[in-house]
């Protein structure tokens, strides 16, 4: 504990240095803008702004990107509450009761409860991240290739089991990502695979063009042409103060959302989206006034908003401790670290304490900055939505092109973005989730390499996965989850999704 506090003190000395603090605040502002603007979620926002970090130190770069991430989480709630436009997917559930509160003239308390809930959840989850990541990283030092193989398989099966969509569709998208991840030079044999003469593909398909294509460009393709300027409601500062009753009713949902969101954040998948759905479902089920949900229940704002912000911090646990991303956003952030020559993994906390603890401390600072930004300046941010979308989306397209091109100065990456944008557009029309594709793409080389290294270690004996206790335990969990996921198919009826209300759509 003493060591943790010493490390945290080191982190604050980094995070509060004027240079890092400036980028933390900048990240929060840019993130809030990204969250407010429809058509530009946190993943596309982070991917597009990755080139901005090239001239920065690794610590400043990761602090800036993290600021954009949780800034987008905060910003997404503003448009959900005021205009029923979810700035990003995790804010969909906030639309339901948040907008209903606005219609009843209670937009101010809704915004305040969302911001306060996000602040509490964000802070609590950073404490949990700080306490959980170091022992997990120490434990992960015992991992060899068989354990990593089992861990990555476990990640993929949890992704499918916990996803909000149908399991075969989620697994299919993850497998499509795994296939894309095999393009390029095979690390074990040096064979060039599936490049068809395009030399730029030798290093594999980059995560940035795929992420921007699947999330940024496909969103623009789906939304362009719909140009109805929204009615913008701007609450006054004095209207933002919630009543004592609002605060009292929000405490328990905020705390539940924080715990739930953090743990869902650790597991792979679109955690911040799932956590808000699960939190809403739970709050509705345990509420003494379930009939108020959908008509302006403050618990329906506090729970999901807390959960999605806690999930944002939880998602960093596997990234910092194991070097394994739990979702597409940590994957892009890992790519950013690698661009700066930092190798994520269990040794990161030992070798780069200033980076890791500076990053963790910057999250405390970021939460305070966002609370200040999101309440008094809410009117300023929502003004952005007065810009007609017909002006906004061509500019976003241009920034997609610059952002993707600038990473490697390669037009092949621009082509990849266009192709994945078109594929993403079509698959999203067919109701497929795109997050598993990005996760599969980043996990594919790790999974293949660790599997083949394990077999090389054991002279081709698959028993190596059963003889090592950690790998065997994780594989047993894989089998158990697989059986659990098949159970509803055999027995009929719903699974955990229907029990927690994840099948509910916003009305």
């Amino acid at each position, binding site marked *: 504990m003493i060591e943790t506090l010493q490390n945290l003190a080191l982190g604050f000395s980094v995070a509060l240095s004027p240079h890092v603090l400036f980028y933390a605040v900048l990240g929060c502002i840019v993130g809030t803008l990204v969250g407010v603007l429809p058509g530009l979620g946190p993943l596309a926002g982070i991917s597009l702004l990755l*080139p*901005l970090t*090239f*001239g920065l130190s690794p610590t400043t770069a990761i602090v800036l990107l993290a600021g954009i991430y949780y800034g987008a989480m905060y910003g997404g709630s503003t448009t959900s509450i005021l205009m029923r436009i979810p700035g990003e997917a995790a804010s969909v559930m906030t639309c339901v009761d948040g907008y209903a509160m606005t219609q009843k003239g209670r937009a101010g308390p809704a915004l305040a409860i969302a911001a306060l809930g996000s602040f509490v959840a964000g802070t609590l989850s950073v404490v949990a991240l700080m306490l959980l990541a170091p022992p997990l990283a120490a434990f992960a030092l015992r991992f060899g290739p068989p354990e990593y193989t089992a861990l990555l398989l476990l990640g993929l099966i949890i992704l499918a089991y916990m996803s909000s969509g149908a399991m*075969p*569709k989620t*697994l*299919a998208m993850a*497998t*499509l990502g795994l*296939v894309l991840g*095999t393009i390029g030079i*095979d690390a*074990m*044999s040096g*064979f060039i*695979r*599936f490049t068809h003469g395009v030399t730029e593909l030798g290093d594999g398909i980059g995560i940035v063009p795929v992420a921007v294509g699947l999330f940024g*460009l496909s969103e*623009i*393709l*789906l*939304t*362009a*042409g*719909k*140009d109805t300027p929204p009615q913008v409601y701007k609450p006054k500062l004095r209207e933002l103060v919630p009543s004592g009753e609002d605060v009292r009713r929000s405490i328990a949902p905020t705390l539940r959302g924080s715990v739930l969101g953090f743990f869902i954040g650790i597991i792979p998948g679109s955690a911040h989206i799932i956590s808000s759905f699960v939190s809403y479902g739970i709050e509705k089920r345990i509420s003494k006034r379930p009939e108020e949900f959908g008509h302006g229940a403050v618990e329906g704002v506090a729970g999901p908003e807390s959960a999605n912000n806690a999930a944002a911090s939880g998602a960093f646990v596997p990234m910092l401790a194991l070097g394994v991303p739990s979702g597409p956003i940590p994957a892009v952030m890992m790519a950013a670290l690698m661009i700066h020559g930092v190798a994520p993994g269990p040794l990161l906390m030992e070798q780069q304490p200033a980076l890791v603890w500076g990053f963790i401390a910057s999250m405390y600072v970021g939460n305070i900055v966002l609370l200040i930004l999101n309440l008094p300046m809410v009117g300023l941010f929502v003004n952005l939505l007065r810009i007609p979308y*017909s*002006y906004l*989306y*061509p*500019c976003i*397209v*241009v920034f*997609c*092109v*610059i952002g993707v*091109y*600038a990473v490697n*100065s390669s*037009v092949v990456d*621009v*082509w990849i973005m*266009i192709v994945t*944008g078109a594929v993403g*557009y079509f698959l999203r*029309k*067919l*109701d*497929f989730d795109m997050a598993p594709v990005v996760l599969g793409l980043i996990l*594919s080389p790790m*999974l*293949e390499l660790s*599997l*083949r290294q394990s*077999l090389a270690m054991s*002279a*081709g*004996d*698959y028993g190596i996965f059963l003889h090592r206790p950690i790998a065997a335990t994780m594989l047993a969990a894989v089998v158990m989850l697989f059986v659990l996921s098949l159970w509803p198919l055999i027995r009929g009826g719903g699974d955990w999704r229907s029990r927690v209300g994840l099948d509910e759509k916003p009305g």
Partner: protein
Amino acid sequence: MPPERPTAPAWWSNDRVGGVILIVIAGLVALDTTTLPIGTLARPGPGYAPLICALILAALGLLVALRRGGAPFSGLRWGEGRHAALILGAGAFAALALERIGFRLTTLAILVFLLGVVERRPPLAVAAVALAISFGGYYLFWNILRVPLPIGPFGI
């Protein structure tokens, strides 16, 4: 009034179309792995992992295609399709032109096309936004952020 007959679910549901596409992709990947050494179960070669992934993808594609119910594919609305095609066309133009005519002229052309031709915005607004984004964006990336962007003819 006679009771309405329940309509049969459409054969080509969204899931079925998606599943078939996944099977086709899996087939193409499997075909492509024939040029690579597959190896054995104990000593996997470079074609092993892609082949296994292709087989799993085909199986999952089949599962998705065989799912019951789901929205009919014919029910999908493509109202934004024209916009989507034009945006993709503008993106393709960017990929072709970026290193030939430079960043500023490429983005200027894209913005004039999307704002002026596709969205039919007033010419003065189109010119202002296109010039500000293309030249301002270049200045921001090149001069302030030191990110190299391609330069076209006459140094523009």
